[in-house]
């Protein structure tokens, strides 16, 4: 049986009914990976066997992005500099998953240190989009999205700093949620930009997203930025109607450069929700145009500091050049980082170092923080009048492998609709809402005010119940 093609909530029912064992689910996933992953390359490492406890509450295998620490596993952020680094502890989300009984299936591929929107900057090579293997799966959580889309995973965790869960979810036709900043503990997530990073679920449907968020959220005493706010049962929010919900349409998001397929799909989605009782209003987020540039100041600035620990002293790669140039220690730092980091990582470290440098701090980092406040205030104002905002997740569907790799600005712009949610800390979800003319999935993004994930789940669930896009799967020719 192809147990791997089901959702987690379906499998939980089957388990309860005794139709399947946890071990069988794990095995069907393992064989799917064996069969397809040569082509897709969603995984960078997988578990040979599963530790399944007989009394496990949720024994559904889960795949996690390669920047989330698993005790005893190599955890590398798909970077050469961390190759052979074995994590000595579990990330809080992994600890919670293990406590719920979910066996870890594997580490999924990603852009190196999550720097990218295509999963092409991985030191292990790119992941391919299951819908069209000449296309990227999006990124940086491209491995997680492709694994779920190709039924090589039931569900997966990604991390989202500027769209890294939602954009690949849109490109691969799965559900991707970036929770509110502080909803999910970041302890054990190897930091890219600490004030923007958030772990979240990539799933086959909205129900699984709610189920997985139930498991991973909550206050963590090990993460000072995690919120001490009670976690509701998110599955209780899965209601099939949008009565009395007001959804805002920000005019700044419907710009030139959006493909007609995306425009059409979003318009149709509005009609579906209208029919289920949603009221739509036009809203304005006037500082949207500064989001990408603000992000590319703040995120690299934090990254430049977060990546300083990869210096060859205590773990990971260490290279001492044969010919001494400066002091031995400086030579070691320079050569280790030179060989250990890829081009995009170096670019971001340099950008960030520059933005924080004496004499430039005020003009870049400080100003960036001020604009960030303005962007956040835009959302505060808009959410006074509506419950959620509806936009496309991305301006276009997935692009070709190699198409944008040498054009960083065009690559950065593929996150134009997702970045604001990270800058403002609000939750946002991407759900499948159509297929483009060239056969690639299109994503619909919903965002809400901080800690209003329940509203996102309700709208997304209603949409899903009244359409069938989430059930579409790529037909893999392997």
């Amino acid at each position, binding site marked *: 049986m192809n147990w791997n093609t089901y959702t987690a909530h379906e499998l939980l029912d089957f388990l309860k009914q005794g139709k399947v064992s946890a071990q069988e689910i794990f095995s069907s996933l393992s064989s799917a990976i064996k069969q397809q992953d040569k082509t897709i390359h969603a995984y960078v490492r997988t578990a040979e066997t599963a530790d399944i406890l007989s009394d496990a509450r949720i024994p559904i295998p889960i795949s996690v992005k390669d*920047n*989330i*620490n698993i005790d005893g596993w190599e*955890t590398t*952020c798909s970077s050469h500099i*961390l190759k052979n*680094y074995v*994590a*000595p*502890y579990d*990330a809080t989300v992994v600890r919670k998953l293990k406590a719920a009984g979910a066996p870890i299936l594997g580490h999924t591929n990603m852009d190196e240190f999550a720097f990218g929107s295509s999963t092409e900057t991985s030191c292990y090579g790119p992941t391919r989009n299951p819908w069209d293997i000449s296309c990227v799966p999006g990124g940086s959580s491209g491995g997680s999205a492709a694994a779920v889309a190709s039924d090589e995973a039931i569900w997966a965790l990604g991390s989202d700093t500027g769209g890294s869960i939602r954009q690949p979810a849109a490109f691969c036709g799965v559900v991707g949620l970036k929770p509110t900043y502080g909803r999910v503990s*970041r*302890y*054990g*997530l*190897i*930091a890219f*930009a*600490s*004030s923007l990073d958030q772990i979240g679920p990539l799933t086959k449907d909205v129900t699984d997203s709610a189920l997985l968020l139930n498991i991973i959220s909550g206050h963590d*005493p*090990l*993460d*000072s*930025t995690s919120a001490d706010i009670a976690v509701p049962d998110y599955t209780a929010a899965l209601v099939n109607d949008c009565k009395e919900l007001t959804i805002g349409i920000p005019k700044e998001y419907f710009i030139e450069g959006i493909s007609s397929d995306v425009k059409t799909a979003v318009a149709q989605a509005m009609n579906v929700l209208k029919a289920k009782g949603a009221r739509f209003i036009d809203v304005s987020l006037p500082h949207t145009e500064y989001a990408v540039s603000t992000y590319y100041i703040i995120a690299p*600035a*934090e990254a*430049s*500091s977060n*990546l*300083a*620990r*990869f*210096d060859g*002293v*205590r*773990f990971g790669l260490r290279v001492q050049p044969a010919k001494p140039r400066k002091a031995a*220690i400086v030579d070691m*730092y320079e050569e280790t980082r030179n060989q250990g980091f890829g081009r995009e990582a170096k670019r971001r470290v340099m950008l960030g*170092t520059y933005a*924080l*440098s*004496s004499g430039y*701090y005020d003009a870049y*980092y400080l100003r960036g923080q001020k604009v960030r406040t303005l962007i956040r205030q835009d959302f505060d104002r808009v959410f006074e009048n509506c419950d959620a905002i509806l936009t496309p997740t991305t301006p276009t569907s997935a692009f070709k492998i190699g198409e944008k790799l040498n054009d960083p600005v065009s690559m950065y712009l593929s996150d134009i609709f997702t970045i604001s949610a990270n800058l403002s800390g609000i939750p946002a979800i991407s759900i499948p809402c159509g297929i483009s003319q060239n056969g690639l999935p299109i994503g619909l993004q919903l965002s809400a005010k901080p800690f209003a994930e329940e509203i996102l789940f309700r709208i997304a669930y209603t949409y899903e119940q009244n359409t069938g896009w989430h059930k579409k799967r790529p037909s893999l020719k392997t």
Partner: protein
Amino acid sequence: MSILTQKDFETVIGLEVHLQFSTQTKIFCGCENVFGRQPNTCVCPVCLGLPGTLPVLNKAALDSAIKTALALNCRVNSYIKFDRKNYYYPDLPKGYQISQFDFPIGHQGHLDIAVNGATKRIRIHRAHIEEDAGKLIHDSEEGCSLVDYNRTGTPLMEIVTEPDLRSPQEAYDYLTALKLALQYLEVSDCDMEKGSLRCDANISIRPKGETKLGTKAELKNMNSFKAVKAALEFEEERQFRILVSGGTIVQETRLWNEDKQATYTMRSKEDAHDYRYFPEPDLVPFIVEAAEIEQIRLRLPENPQAKCSRLQKDFGLSDYDATIIVQDQYLADFFEACAKHSTKTKKIANWIIGPLLKELNDRKCSVKDLSLKPEQFVILIEKVENGDVSNLVGKDVLMSLLQDDTQTVDGMISAQGLSQVSDDSFLEAIAEQTLSEHANVVQQIKNGNEGAI
């Protein structure tokens, strides 16, 4: 033109003191905060800066910091914010130090010191908290460096003065006064040998009357207050020689070499780091309620200067006696406890400064480590004063009391028959008996052999 001498110049000194707090655990993780363990045994993923770890502020370290800032008469920032100071060094696991940049816990404080009999106020520019780095151990035999991360994450307070000190001696006096004030707070063991108190110094000289500061040198690697003073004296002289010979002083960091008693260039201003400070995103800024700060202020112990004046005023001690007694707060506490049992405070002070302090110094311990009971100590002093026992016997009894705190003075004197006896007839009888028992010795002495006893 007259020849310039050192007297024509004024020395300007500012000090940076790093104080380790002796909290139970480290500042951002749960590791034990102890000195002297096997290298790299008091470490965890957080203080090793392993990928994915996050800091969580230790509330006890914050309390110590607020307490210290208040004791140094600082204004306390209720807005608690941390920043990252970025630089590469093998003893700094994350490649940045979590410190405070624009909102130090304390600022605009001061500490008074005595200079030539007058009080001089040394302004404190700022006092902020940060995490300590690890320790590099250079193994010259193996030709490599080893890193011990046990110290990484020890809570540290950096206390920076304004450039108010005018001589190496003043710097020494400031450090002495600061250490004493800090010891009273019981936030640190203030032990320079263990590195729990460290001092860097900034020094420049300028012609007398000049208001602009000269080019400074920063001095590091002084391991005692004496070394701070010696390094400053060396540097004062070095800078003077450069200026009188028409040279210019280069802004630089210099290392003190204890063996050679000299400073050497470590790095010039051009090599100075750009620390790229920015707000630490892993720690959310928060407000400490004014009431909480007030609570800490109310619980502050009396400072040594206030205690010194009060001991003179309330107990009639001399300035000299009071100054010695307040050098150790536990000794001062002990004195006050004794003074509750007797009005002979001058005698108590003498006994404390004399035999007791000598004994404490011999044992290298504090009175708080002994269970000497103040009332027994006072009884003993009164017995000696009344002539019940001799001074010599009194000191012996004191030793015995220190050996065995279950004994009382009375018990010990009667059990050992140590009472001083003043009854003439009783004493005459004993003398007669002794003489008759040793008649041959008496005879020998009478014969002129005075060494017979």
